[in-house]
């Protein structure tokens, strides 16, 4: 059952995951919770790991969740699940899309999905922030009534500095993550 659930979960994510790994994160976040595979907190550790390892985030996530649930075989099943849709789509659908890419329908679908992926990436940022920056979910009454005490100060400062480093100075993401990780080991522990 677990094997099938994991395969199904990641197959589904691969099938509808438009817009790259970051836009897929909300799908994976919601999926592991729907199926009760992992807490959001545990899963956010993986997102953190993904930032310092090479390779596609979605493959990292599938391997991580699968391994966590059912060892090496679980990791293989989940990873197979996320890879299979890509494989089939590129062999079969790609040809059709190429032929119909200038039709109104196909252009409309992409014009609708692209802004949604931007929204999903923002949602991924918030989901991750909720596990590190805030001590309770953001869209709740208790947050709005008293937002100040909901913020973890040091992580919030790290968040702000990281954003500025990439936004203003265009610093390398890997460098920012590694630097903040080292600083955090001493001041966040």
């Amino acid at each position, binding site marked *: 059952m677990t094997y099938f659930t994991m395969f199904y979960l990641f197959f589904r994510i*691969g099938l*509808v*995951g*438009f*817009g*790259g790994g*970051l836009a897929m994160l*909300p*799908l994976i976040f919601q999926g592991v919770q729907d199926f009760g595979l992992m807490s959001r907190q545990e899963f956010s550790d993986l997102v*953190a790991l993904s*930032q310092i*390892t090479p*390779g*596609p985030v979605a*493959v990292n996530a599938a*391997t*991580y969740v699968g391994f966590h649930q059912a060892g*090496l075989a679980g990791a293989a099943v989940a*990873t197979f699940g996320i890879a299979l849709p*890509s*494989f089939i*789509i*590129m*062999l079969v659908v*790609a040809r059709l*899309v*190429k032929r119909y890419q200038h039709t*109104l*329908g196909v252009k*409309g*679908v*992409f014009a*609708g999905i692209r*802004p*949604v992926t*931007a*929204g*999903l*990436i*923002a*949602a991924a940022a918030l989901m*991750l*922030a909720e596990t590190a*920056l805030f001590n309770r979910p953001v*869209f709740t009454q208790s947050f709005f009534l008293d937002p100040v005490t909901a913020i*973890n100060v040091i992580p919030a400062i*790290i*968040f*702000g500095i*990281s*954003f500025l480093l990439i*936004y203003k100075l265009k610093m390398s993401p890997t460098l920012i*993550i590694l630097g*903040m*990780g*080292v600083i*955090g*080991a001493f001041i*966040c*522990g």
Partner: protein
Amino acid sequence: MLPFIQKMVVDQKKWLEEDEMVDCIAIAQSLPGVLAINTATYVGNRKAGLSGAVAATLGVILPSFIVIIILVLLLRSLGTSSYVEGAFIAIKAAASGLILYSAIRLGSMVVKGWFPWVLAIGSFVAVAAFNVSAIWAIVVGAILGVLYAVVRQRKGAL
């Protein structure tokens, strides 16, 4: 990762011409699935058929697979350490900032005009605040995109 793949495939291995590679990436990006696997499958299939696609896909998956398993085992053997926990909190905080930046950058490229704004903000609020399934956000976005395109064409024709 894509510039790296492009460089290897076009310049070093000369498996594909530059313009076909650009084509391949455009298609891989517009279709669902893991971008790197999409690209690998396309290149592998073009160069050596089905077995080429399988080989290329395995090649792009295996490093991630191995690295993650080694890291998990390593972290498990470290046990709970306040240094590791602190590093994780800081990495998550930093990653939130970087991902927010990605959202803003993508947004500034694709969100032009009121219609994409509604879709971008609508999907963010639906998923982040109301825990609506991201699958629905994508499906609804696709349907609205088609409707909007049809309506705009009708208006243009009048």
